[in-house]
């Protein structure tokens, strides 16, 4: 498998002086294209910080991060925003949909914001994704009126909208009941299998982690296993 991303000697420090907290302490990691990996570790181990840095939403204090051959530490905000839009999808624990928009409008957002308008093509892809998520009856539903599981499936569809190479999921099932959680994970596994999208899923749940082919354990700011 070809390498999708690599980070080396990654450090992240918050605060300064007595309040200084080192969350990442020289973390190194590589992900190959098409992988489906679970990110495990206790609270405060640096999982979320690592995901945030990998998602280009935050820069590390030091270290290297390259994805698809691009140096993402040196890139400026504009370049990172564009890169994120094209190559990275996010699924958050609390779905984080735009409440004043329908399910379809939420899914189409990443493409529409790049193209400056909602094209018919984008709407068709968004609709296909929602159908694939089993939400054909909820396409034009206001997202605020969807159930927790439905919202999370819309979030997965949104993450896949721009056909990203990498999807970062931070506790995607942490807020769902067991059935909904398994439904979401089955979808993720299906997409990984069929489209080769790389998934890195942060979770505390051993059962969810067991569904992934690789488990990466983070402890005290470094990869421990």
């Amino acid at each position, binding site marked *: 498998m070809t390498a999708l991303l690599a980070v080396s000697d990654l450090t992240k420090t918050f605060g300064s002086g007595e309040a200084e907290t080192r969350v990442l302490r020289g973390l190194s990691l590589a992900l190959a294209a098409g992988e489906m990996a679970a990110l495990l570790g206790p609270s405060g181990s640096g999982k979320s910080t690592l995901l*945030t840095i990998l*998602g280009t*939403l*935050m820069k590390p204090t030091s270290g290297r991060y390259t994805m698809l051959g691009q140096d993402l530490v040196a890139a400026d*905000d*504009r370049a990172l*925003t*564009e890169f*994120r*839009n*094209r190559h990275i999808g*996010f699924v*958050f624990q609390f779905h*984080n*949909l*735009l*409440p*004043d*928009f329908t399910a379809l409008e939420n899914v189409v*957002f*990443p493409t*529409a*914001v*790049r*193209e*400056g*308008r*909602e094209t018919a093509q984008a709407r068709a892809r968004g609709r296909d994704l929602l159908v694939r998520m089993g939400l054909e009856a909820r396409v034009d539903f206001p997202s605020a009126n969807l159930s927790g599981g439905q919202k999370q499936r819309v979030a997965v569809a*949104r993450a896949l909208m*721009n056909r990203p190479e990498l999807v970062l999921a931070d506790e995607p099932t942490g807020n769902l009941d067991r059935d909904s959680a398994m439904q979401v994970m089955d979808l993720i596994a299906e997409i990984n299998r069929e489209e080769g999208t790389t998934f890195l899923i942060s979770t505390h749940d051993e059962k969810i982690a067991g569904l992934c082919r690789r488990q990466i354990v983070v402890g005290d700011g470094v990869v421990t296993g």
Partner: protein
Amino acid sequence: MLYGLKIATRYLTASKAQTALLVLGVAVGVFIFVFMSALIGGLAEFILSRTVGDISHITIEADDPDPPVLIQRDGHVLAVIERGRTRTATLPDAATYLPLIEKVPGVVAVSPQIGGAGFLARGAQVAQVSVTGLEPGRESAILNLRGYIVEGSERLGSGIVVLGETLADDLSLKLGQTLRLQSSIGASAVLTVGGIYSTGNGMIDASSVYVSLPTARTLFALPQGVTRIEIKLSDLNAADATARRIAALTGLDAVPWTDGAEQLMEALNAQAQTGYFLKTFALITIVIGVASALLLSTYRRRPEIGIMRAMGAGRGFVIFVFVTQGALVGLLGGLSGAALGYLALLPFPSRDAFEAGTLPMDITQGSYGLAITLTVIGAVLASILPARSAARVDPVTAIGQ
């Protein structure tokens, strides 16, 4: 950009009550702006029409020739013939200039006149008067004599005099009665009262009399020419420029009404300044209202801004969304306020029918376009600060909220 407009519109329509309140606030500011513009403009119009509406906007008078002086060879002045108290200079070629002046853009009426002093006598009663000879058919060209007539007619024919109500009362004159008018050069004529007017101006009503131009020629021994030409304009604010144009065209000394009216102009300027202050305060209120409402919206929507940023929305896009919201609020508020202002001004009498005791609101001076434009600009400026604040939202912190 279209997509940014959609997001901005959705945000505004998502909180209908809040948006309606915001638009209403802006509309009230614009309403005040429009109302003040119409009031200040109407007031200025009213004052001008009452003060200079019935006077000549441009006057052409012949220059009196320099008085003859007898000077010795060494430069000593031996004798000077003092200038007479009565104006004697005339414009002999007035008839040539009249068609030229009438064609100057903005000129609505031209009135050749012969003016002078005289005495009006009826029996033992005598009154000193100012005599003006007007061309028959152009009696109301400058002073709206027809509008002020209370008895008889303004038409000046041979042997007819039209005089003020106060003067008529002083001399116990009635319509159709005869009197003797003697000019300052001693010529006299027996005239019949053809009309009595009341302008409301005490000076005019007590001492001005009007006769026909041929009668004035006899009284002041002027077989040809006139002593002055009075000109009325459609826009009295254009008097200075038009006077310069007429002077260049005719070579005559054309004097605009603004010469010697500095105090009136200062008063009108002061009034206009007051209007600018009030309108500026109205705009400031709009800007503060829009800025605070959008700042609040920015704070409330921080998590959503964070999500948008995470999904690949650039800072420029976020700024565009919030600035567009400001522009839309400004446009809606501006249009509503201007429409409300227009509707509120409808019941007031038009500028041609201003009456004493009522607010002289001029619906045509509501500055509607200016109010809407300034409001949109103000609202856009007001939204820049909240928009920049929104663009600076850290997606990680915002999503974690």
